[in-house]
């Protein structure tokens, strides 16, 4: 089983300098834990001191924000596309 994860520029250094990586997990939380196994230090970059996902970091499953799904318990399956994207300004 393998899920493609898009990595934003500020996280690429900790993820082997890659734009996309493969990882496993049945939920977003498990996927992020797996990424921390593969790339030590990953977890502390995406979670804040209180153990919540950083508030300026958004996670999408097949282009839908996980906050519209089930947050970190959102289920994912083989072939899904996950994107980690910093919040950006707008107009």
């Amino acid at each position, binding site marked *: 089983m393998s899920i493609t994860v*898009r*990595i*934003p*520029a*500020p996280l*690429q250094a900790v993820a082997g300098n890659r*734009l996309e990586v493969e990882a496993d997990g049945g939920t977003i939380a498990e996927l992020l834990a797996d990424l921390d196994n593969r790339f030590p230090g990953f977890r502390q*970059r995406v979670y*804040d001191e209180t153990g919540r996902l*950083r*508030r*300026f*970091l*958004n996670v*999408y499953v097949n*282009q839908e*924000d996980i*906050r*519209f799904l089930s947050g970190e318990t959102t289920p994912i399956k083989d072939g899904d596309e996950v*994107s980690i*994207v*910093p*919040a*950006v*300004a*707008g*107009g």
Partner: protein
Amino acid sequence: MSSYIHHVQGLACRDCGRNYPLENLTVCEHCFGRLEPRYNYGAIRRYLSRGLIYSRPQNIWRYRELLPLTGLPQVGQSNGFTPLVRARRLAERLGVSELYIKNDAVNAPTLSYKDRVVPVAISRALETGLELFACASTGNLANSVAAHAAQAGLPCIVFIPDNLEAAKIVNSLVYGPTVVAVKGNYDAVNRLCAELTARHPSWGIANVNLRPYYAEGAKTMAFEIAEQLGWRFPRHVVLPVAGGTLLPRVHRGFDEFVKVGLVEGELPRIHAAQPEGCCPVVDAFLHRRDRIVPQKPNTIAKSLAIGDPADGYTVLESLKATGGSAVAVPDEEIIGAIKLLAETEGIFAETAGGATLAGAVRLSESGVIPRHESIVVAVTGNGLKTQAALDGALAQPVRVEARVEHFEAAWQELQKEAIAA
């Protein structure tokens, strides 16, 4: 230009405090927090005076020491210094004593507040040799980005949601950029652009990797309000909130004018207005949430239809710091406010301006803004771009044949109707 003395020193993360050199960064590399330029305020205080500002052309660059350029500006000579209109007839209708409209509906060259931020972003792009200028936009930003790219001779791509008003699309296409209509709402467009930045480091995406520079341009609205009021602050400012760029920078602009000694006194209370169909910041403020909950927008105010505002937290901080408040208004009140402003002051605002005025009316009626205190309401865009929102809301033309008796009969009929009403 090497002879130009600049006072911007670097970027600092508002959230974790880390410092960065002046680079084209979207967010803090460590915590993804918000980056802001740092200035040498002491040096600016010694150098910048009211007299020096008076001596310069009436555009955004008259405050250039407080903008993050390292050279002299090459574009944007017609931008900013929009009218601050004393709205006497509207004030009378609302029962308030001192009301002003900051009229960015006539900002140049593309008729919205975006003509303040884009020249700063593109100047930064030119200073750092970026090869293409782009943005993710609900329309107004796209118009401004396309026009300034044309002015600077840079290739341009604008990314917009595929449901925009026709006028906002034409007002981008005419400048010759590549217009990409993305399926989905603005938040989807923004996510795409954030992902593209990593792949195309030689592109300057105004609201992404040029964001810390771009946002600073919005301070000029505050600078102008203070200068136009005779170097003093109003008591209240009401601003629209979409992505959250403008409101915190207006706050920052007032604060900086105090820091560099150009104005004394208490900062204005800053209030936020959003449409009910997209009000994640108002919702977080009123319910005292520590996290902003994103929404799926559904409103006629498309330029405010940003369900996941990146600077929403910055807005909340400014509201708290200045003792301001937040209000959401239904679409019917937006249309009513557009008509009221047009009929009393001769200003045709876009839907965002209607939302802001409708919000100000509610805040006044509920006593949050006391009637005797001075109020500035910002109109950030032009009604000519959102005409479809008024379909069915206006009277129809009176049709006559080109004969005197036909007109006179129709006129008499109208007079009777007016008396009956």
